[in-house]
């Protein structure tokens, strides 16, 4: 009768919860019994752990062995508990000193030969362990850099169970052949874009108005809708929005990296994502792919959470399946998404800037005169983007193809991303100074009531908005939205409060040129 305990971490959303892994050897028929709400991959740990222990030159205890993962009510998923289970069993069998492993947090999947494979979600797991007061973690060697992003935690990176056992027994590490560091498993989500470096706003010719709109969106985090014929540069513009955004600060970068880690979408080698992420789901995406989903045991973040602190680009918006676009409405308001499955409700942060693009009609003619669509087909097409969704979009813009004169003029005057990004940074700094001590990081995040109470605007500046409200062309929410944009315009122009022409421009941007 022997008992041993180690620790590991179960993830609920982006929160890591400490899990006690206990192994008990008792009387009864020999065998390994795993209890504590495991999913399929975790139940298979039974077979992986046994083979790994035997191939690491250790004795497999032929006894009735029970491994309990507690708290038992917390759902646990994935193969990341293998290492903790193996060490707990060996400690219960008396092969290891109990004191050596009782307070260690261990993450990693075991190969049948005892290799330790990388697992997704190491960063949030190590963060969770650190918050729970555990400051030594064992991680797969391929996840070492990711784990070391967490401050004040001692990271023990190991490549095999044998190496870990030598470490725990204070023996010299085994002389292993130079095994390559195992690469993370192929990502289930689209890996973060690496061609970002080559994009620049100067690549876009013409479209001065759209460039201005992009700058405003970047400065205040405002949602953007681009309507225009194919080839006028909607996608080019959207892809360049991240190049205007300031780099993420440490806290935001860790948030973003944690989400991408869970989705298995971290770029190998340099895991910290410190630039604003950009995701552009294809229009065949399901609601679960966009919002996040999965089984009740394992909920994975969707596109909107991968775009947290960055840009979500919805290209060809009317082509998305019914309901998918409207499901964005709540996350846009609350900055997070709640995914409910039977028995669990998981929250993922989703504070993104939405950029939607659409053609004006199904035939997508370059000029309105060439359009062959019936009026009803045109209105049906755009009606797929619902009013309530557009109501939440601060900047709506109708693009037309750039003219020859515009293109020629623009060759000399196109501003680079760096120039615009500097102005954006200044505007954001002004906003941050104004909001110092408050929890918001950009104008678009301020809730409506707080906006009106804390940041009053002069009556003259409010006049354009109030007139529109009276006419009925502006909703109450639209007014708040336009006010936020007006503050951003004032920040960009280095004014202390919005001038009447700021609110007027904000109103124009909110209304757009509705077809």
């Amino acid at each position, binding site marked *: 009768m022997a008992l041993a305990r180690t620790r590991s971490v179960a993830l609920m959303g982006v929160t890591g919860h400490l899990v006690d892994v206990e192994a008990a050897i008792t*009387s*009864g*028929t*020999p065998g390994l019994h795993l209890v504590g709400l495991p999913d399929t991959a975790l139940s298979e740990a039974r077979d992986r752990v046994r083979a790994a222990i035997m191939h690491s030159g250790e004795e497999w205890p*032929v*006894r*009735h062995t029970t491994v309990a993962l507690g708290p038992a009510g917390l759902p646990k998923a994935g193969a990341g508990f293998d290492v903790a289970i193996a060490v707990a069993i060996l400690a219960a069998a008396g092969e290891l000193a109990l004191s050596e492993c009782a307070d260690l947090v261990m993450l990693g999947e075991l190969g049948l030969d005892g290799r330790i494979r990388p697992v997704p979600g190491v960063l949030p797991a190590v963060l969770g362990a650190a918050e729970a007061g555990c400051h030594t973690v064992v991680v797969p060697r391929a996840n070492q850099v990711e784990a070391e992003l967490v401050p004040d935690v001692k990271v023990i990176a190991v490549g095999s169970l044998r190496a870990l056992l030598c470490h725990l027994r204070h023996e010299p590490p085994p002389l292993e052949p130079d095994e390559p560091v195992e690469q993370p498993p192929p990502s289930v989500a689209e890996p973060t874009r690496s061609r970002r470096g080559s994009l620049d706003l100067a690549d876009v010719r013409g479209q001065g108005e759209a460039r201005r709109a992009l700058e405003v969106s970047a400065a205040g985090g405002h949602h953007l809708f681009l309507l225009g014929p194919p080839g006028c540069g909607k996608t080019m513009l959207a892809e360049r929005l991240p190049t205007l955004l300031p780099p993420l600060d440490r806290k935001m970068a860790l948030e973003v990296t944690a989400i991408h880690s869970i989705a298995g979408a971290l770029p190998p080698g340099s895991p910290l994502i410190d630039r604003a992420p950009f995701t552009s789901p294809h229009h065949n995406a399901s609601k679960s792919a966009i919002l996040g989903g999965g089984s009740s045991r394992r909920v994975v973040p969707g596109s909107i959470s991968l775009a947290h602190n960055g840009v979500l680009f919805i290209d060809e918006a009317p082509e998305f399946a019914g309901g998918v676009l409207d499901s964005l409405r709540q996350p846009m308001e609350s900055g997070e998404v709640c995914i409910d499955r039977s028995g669990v409700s998981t929250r993922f942060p989703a504070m993104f800037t939405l950029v939607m693009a659409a053609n004006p009609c199904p035939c997508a003619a370059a000029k309105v005169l060439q359009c062959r669509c019936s009026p009803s087909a045109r209105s049906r097409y755009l009606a797929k983007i619902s009013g309530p969704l557009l109501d939440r979009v601060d900047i709506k813009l109708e693009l037309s193809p750039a003219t020859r004169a515009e293109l020629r003029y623009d060759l000399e005057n196109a501003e680079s991303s760096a120039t615009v990004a500097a102005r954006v940074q200044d505007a954001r700094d002004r906003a941050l100074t104004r909001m110092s001590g408050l929890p918001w990081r950009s104008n678009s995040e301020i809730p409506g009531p707080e906006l009106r109470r804390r940041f009053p605007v002069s009556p003259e500046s409010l006049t354009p908005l109030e007139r529109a409200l009276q006419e009925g062309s502006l909703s109450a929410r639209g007014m708040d939205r336009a006010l936020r944009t007006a503050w951003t315009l004032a920040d960009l122009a280095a004014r202390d409060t919005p001038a009447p022409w700021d609110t007027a421009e904000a109103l124009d941007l909110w209304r757009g040129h509705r077809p």
Partner: protein
Amino acid sequence: MNAGHELGRRGENAAVRYLEGLGWRVLARNWRCAEGELDIVAHDGSRHVVCEVKTRRSRAYGDPAEAITITKALRLRRLAGRWAREHGLRASSMRIDLIGLVGGGADGFTVDHLKEVA
């Protein structure tokens, strides 16, 4: 009798010697009924114990103790119940142990005694 039977026989003899060395009283060997056979029934001083003996020449094909699956353990429990009734005892007072033996060469067997397997 083939080599396997021969080894099993020697294993059971070794198990009996081992139990007697512990001070247990062996009451029956190879007790048979319609449902099967009990290798050894012994008394350990406080309880009646059914001992299932498994003998292997080496661990190459698994530990002898691993040969006891849950169905085999349940069958042993039923057999133990029959033995108990026949001897006027309560079935619940019986205990079932497993004795795994490995070896059989010049230096004898190594004994692995698992108590209360079913």
